[in-house]
């Protein structure tokens, strides 16, 4: 019985099925909001599903120079990494499907996988655009990964635990302490946008310069799964940020699920707004922004949190 319950949690809710459906819904909401902000009508609700199934049915071309094994494997690895990370993130209340002391490190590790798979996919496509895209992906990763890790780990200093569920639990009991983490929240929003390669950080996929970066040679099923994994990554990241920085829980399961949607959609709205109102940064500008402004901000947050922790103890 326990095994069945676990399987239900991992595969259906709040596991893989929920993640993928919410990912498609989030893509729709993102595109619709983006369109409405540009005074357009925007797509219908089923368009992300249609995109996915259309790509599933299309021919898959892998040209002779490309590494067929890597091209086919990378989307699946990426999706698996993202889906595994989601298991450790609390959706209902403060308890994730699995959790242990230190699982935030595992989550951050799994969330680095999609970026590395993008790099490998671009590199082994053996196309000029894809290679440039791949090198931009990895350069940008070195820029945002450090501030992202620092600002996600800063709240754990006050909570005195390195598990996502533990952090949510702690802050839901002391909601006022979450106010201390507001600078880290801002840094997290910017770096999450950067991790998702969306404007203003869309240099790796810059359509007007390098067509679509690492995905340029991708067709059919591999492309479908890459797009799906990118959508899932967005949902996992906004769930992670909302679990750590927006710790408002009621204790009632139904209300908590509604709160989860409200919090994640609010973050999604901010990310969409950011992508609508900004223009693309060059890679060196992204690196400058991250290392010159975001890393010191995150470092300051860590020092403040250490002081607060000493004061609380």
């Amino acid at each position, binding site marked *: 019985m326990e095994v069945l319950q676990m399987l239900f949690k991992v595969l259906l809710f709040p596991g893989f099925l929920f993640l993928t459906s919410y990912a498609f819904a989030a893509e729709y909401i993102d*595109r619709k909001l983006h*369109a409405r902000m*540009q*005074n*357009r*009508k*925007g*797509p*219908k609700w*089923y*368009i992300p*599903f*249609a*995109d*996915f*199934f*259309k790509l*599933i*049915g*299309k*021919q*898959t*071309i892998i040209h002779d120079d490309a590494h067929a094994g890597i091209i086919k494997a990378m989307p699946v690895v990426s999706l698996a990494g993202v889906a595994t990370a989601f298991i450790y993130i609390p959706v209902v209340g403060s308890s994730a499907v699995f959790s242990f002391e230190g699982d935030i490190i595992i989550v951050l590790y799994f969330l680095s996988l999609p970026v590395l798979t993008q790099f490998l996919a671009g590199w082994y496509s053996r196309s000029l*655009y894809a290679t440039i895209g791949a090198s931009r992906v990895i350069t940008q990763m070195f820029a945002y990964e450090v501030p992202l890790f620092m600002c996600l780990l800063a709240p754990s200093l006050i909570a005195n635990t390195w598990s996502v569920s533990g952090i949510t639990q702690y802050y839901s009991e002391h909601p006022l302490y979450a106010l201390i983490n507001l600078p880290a929240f801002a840094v997290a929003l910017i770096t999450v946008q950067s991790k998702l390669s969306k404007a203003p950080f869309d240099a790796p996929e810059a*359509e*007007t310069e390098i*067509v*679509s970066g690492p*995905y*340029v*040679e*991708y*067709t*059919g099923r591999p*492309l479908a799964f890459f797009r799906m994994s990118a959508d899932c990554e967005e949902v996992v990241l906004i769930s992670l940020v909302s679990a750590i920085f927006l710790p408002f829980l009621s204790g009632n399961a139904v209300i908590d699920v509604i709160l989860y949607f409200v919090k994640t959609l609010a973050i999604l709205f901010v990310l969409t707004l950011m992508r609508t109102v900004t223009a693309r940064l060059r890679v060196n500008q992204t690196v400058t922004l991250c290392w010159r402004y975001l890393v010191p901000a995150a470092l300051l947050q860590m020092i403040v949190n250490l002081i607060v922790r000493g004061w609380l103890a």
Partner: protein
Amino acid sequence: MDLIRKASQWASGKSPWILHFNAGACNGCDIEVVDCVTPRYDLERFGVVKQGSPRHADVLICTGAVTLQTRDRLKQIYEQMPEPKRVIAVGTCACTGGVFDGCYCVTGGIDTVIPVDVYVPGCAVRPDEIISAVERALSLKTDGEGDKK
């Protein structure tokens, strides 16, 4: 598996991704193609997304008479697109060669190089005609069912 095939059949008409290729047009039709993605016409309502890579595209929108310079490139781009693919010739020049027909550097309409499914005459074409052509190109079930010249 049957369900997935049915789903992808349903989806193939719902999310046409277009690729725009200028084979030697005067830029009049190209501006009308770009018009389609502006707020006034907003092709994304129908799921149409403008793609940069021929690998991602379902529909190739060609404008202009094919010049000798673009002939091989047009053929290459067409061959890079994954099946099932559709081609729309937009504008009088793309349909027949237009005023450039018989010129020393022009081979004629798009169909002298690659098979065309839907012809949209006009100089320049209106954006709403392009929208209906995209819709029509995707409703074609098999090859060779499109417009006859």
